[in-house]
């Protein structure tokens, strides 16, 4: 009972009151005639729910249901990392939800003792998995669960709150359950689950219009004199078009950062000393913003970034990645590598 109390109190503290109200209704385990006062303090609210849990005999399992409902409806928290399954076996496409569930639970429980797995299939074909890890000495830790999302028929797996020592077990169970040979890092991470999923699945409005709305037509005309001629109208239009081609139009998925590890030679015609150096100039460049793709598109359309947009930046939406290692290829051009960061 103590564990339920702890768990419930922590959950109430974490979830905002309005969201908690909606989630509890969806959960459906509250007695129908119960009217909970959501205007009281969180501590009092938690006390009331704990009293109800004792009356109704709620177990940890019931509370994990509640937590899972909350996370599924509000997934844009914490840091999500994407992994990609590689080399499918011939029967990988035939794996359905039931078979995946059985195989995953079987393999993971073989590898790790004392853990609890909860799986749920959502209406949008996403399989949500909640894993509370334990070990030989202690039961499952429900305070720090790992959440995994996998869309069957796609090779992508989204993971949050996974420790590096737990990784090999999860990966092994995943490849056994999905019938793939191996799994690798997809070099994509972000805070907003829905946005990185949309980016990867190319589900956002990545429309490349044949004709972009002209900046002149969109903006209200401030100058209406027929003798006034906007000198830069054509270049502005060109820039905007190239920016839209590189990043897409409309609302863009929110990424927070992109990291480039540069290991290329330093080339500058005015600095012969550095240009003659054989070894690469090592630096790491990080772009950060509340909405990275929006910022980059604005840079391209306003001229801060030269157009046509360099592939290093347009790779972010095109390949759905935000970690790159850039090295010099044999021809002296910069190439992008698929590498596994830690």
């Amino acid at each position, binding site marked *: 009972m103590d564990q339920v109390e702890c768990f419930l109190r922590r959950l109430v503290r974490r979830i905002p009151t309005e969201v908690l109200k909606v989630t509890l209704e969806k959960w459906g385990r509250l007695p129908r005639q119960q009217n909970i006062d959501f205007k009281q303090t969180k501590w009092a609210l938690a006390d009331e729910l704990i009293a109800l849990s004792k009356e109704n005999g709620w177990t940890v399992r019931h509370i994990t249901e509640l937590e899972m409902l909350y996370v599924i409806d509000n997934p844009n928290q914490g840091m999500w990392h994407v992994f990609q399954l590689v080399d499918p076996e011939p029967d990988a496409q035939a794996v359905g939800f039931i078979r995946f569930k059985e195989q995953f639970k079987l393999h993971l429980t073989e590898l790790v003792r004392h853990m609890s797995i909860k799986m749920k299939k959502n209406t949008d074909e996403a399989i949500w998995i909640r894993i509370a890890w334990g070990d030989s000495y202690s039961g499952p830790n429900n305070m720090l669960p790992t959440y995994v999302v996998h869309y069957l028929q796609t090779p992508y797996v989204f993971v949050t709150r996974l420790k590096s020592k737990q990784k090999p077990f999860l990966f092994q169970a995943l490849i056994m359950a999905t019938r793939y040979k191996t799994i690798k890092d997809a070099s994509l991470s972000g805070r907003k689950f829905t946005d990185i999923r949309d980016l990867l699945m190319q589900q956002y409005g990545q429309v490349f219009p044949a004709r972009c709305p002209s900046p002149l037509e969109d903006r209200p005309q401030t100058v209406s004199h027929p003798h006034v001629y906007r000198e830069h109208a054509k270049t502005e239009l060109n820039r905007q078009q190239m920016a839209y081609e590189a990043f897409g139009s409309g609302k863009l998925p929110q990424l927070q950062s992109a990291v480039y590890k540069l290991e290329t030679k*330093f080339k*500058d015609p005015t600095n012969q000393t550095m240009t003659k150096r054989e070894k690469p100039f090592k630096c790491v460049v990080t772009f950060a913003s509340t909405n990275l793709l929006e910022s980059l598109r604005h840079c391209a359309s306003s001229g801060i970034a030269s157009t046509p947009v360099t592939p290093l*930046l347009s790779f972010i939406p095109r390949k759905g990645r935000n970690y790159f290692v850039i090295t010099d290829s044999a021809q002296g051009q910069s190439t992008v590598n698929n590498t596994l960061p830690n």
Partner: protein
Amino acid sequence: MFFFSGGLLPLGLANMLSSTKSVSGTPSSNKRRHRPSRPSTVAHSHLFLTRALSNRRLRTKRKIPGLLVGDPKQNGVRASSSGLAQDKAEPRELRSLVGTEWQLSYVTPLFRFCYTQLKSYARQLAAFVASETAAVAAADLAVNFSVVRGLAGTDWDAEAVFIQISAGGDKSAWSGWLACVNGYPDYLRSLPPDFVCLPLLAGRGLEPLGVAVRSWLSRTFDCSAAPLEMSHAVLQWLMALWVDAWDGRRRQQRQPSRELVAIWTLPAEPPLRVRMSVDSRDAGELWSSVRDPEALREGSPEGEIGWEEVSRFTKGLGGHFYRHFKVDLSAGNLARVATEAGAATREGRLKIHDMGSLNATLSLLTECALLKMPM
């Protein structure tokens, strides 16, 4: 505001000041290629003193100190020809400057500040803080003013003053220092004798106490104090000075471990932050490659670095960045610079890790404070 008692200056003094030329080290510094720190249309006032500062820009050539010998934490401070006079230095206080993050402000010259009345000032400040802020209980409050010798660079610099506000025994609630390191000599000479110029104020601790100290200073000594923001040019200078300190250490075969981190903010919507983290050895080699050849003579203990070299270094980084991303970093400004020797942000936060570069850093910041003062 810059007040002094008794109206206009005596005519002789005013004439002397109006014919003062701005300080220039070399002929190249007469070409003011970098951005001015304040518009020259400002301050054509009846106070002749203003002409000494309002036309100035940051010095374009800076002397760099010798290298630090030994680890300050273990062996005590032994800075060879660093401008910190060995016999006057008090290592404990100066060491406290290093390794903590300070919030910088500028202070206009203090009117009738006496070094002999420090105990009285401490009492007044304690009373003021107790009445103004509820942050610290009056009974626990203890304020201490002390003079620290060793920071003043030239004969015209006033000695640095340390202020310590402690609450409840040894616990320090706020500490700060006022200093003037290598200020413009002709400006300092031109100040009337009642004024003491300590333009750089650094503080750390509870924010309400910092505000109270600045407020007390402005009331008691008829000055004004406000946060000091470090411009793009100042951050570039700091980056160059600190990388130079490395480069010297590397030649002494002591490998620095922290990389050079420079953060720009670009004016996109939403704003874009670009963080460039360069391997320390590569940054040192880039710096050596942009130096003027005569400055790199082996065996010259104290060299000078010029604005052109600093500008070439920044352009080198920007050029490498442009080659890959086709984004022009000069569209934005530096927001933060961090190296093995120190870290500084645009908002005026400073942290110095290395005693050897203390003098050069503080000279630059004193100049920055003098230029920021409203005239």
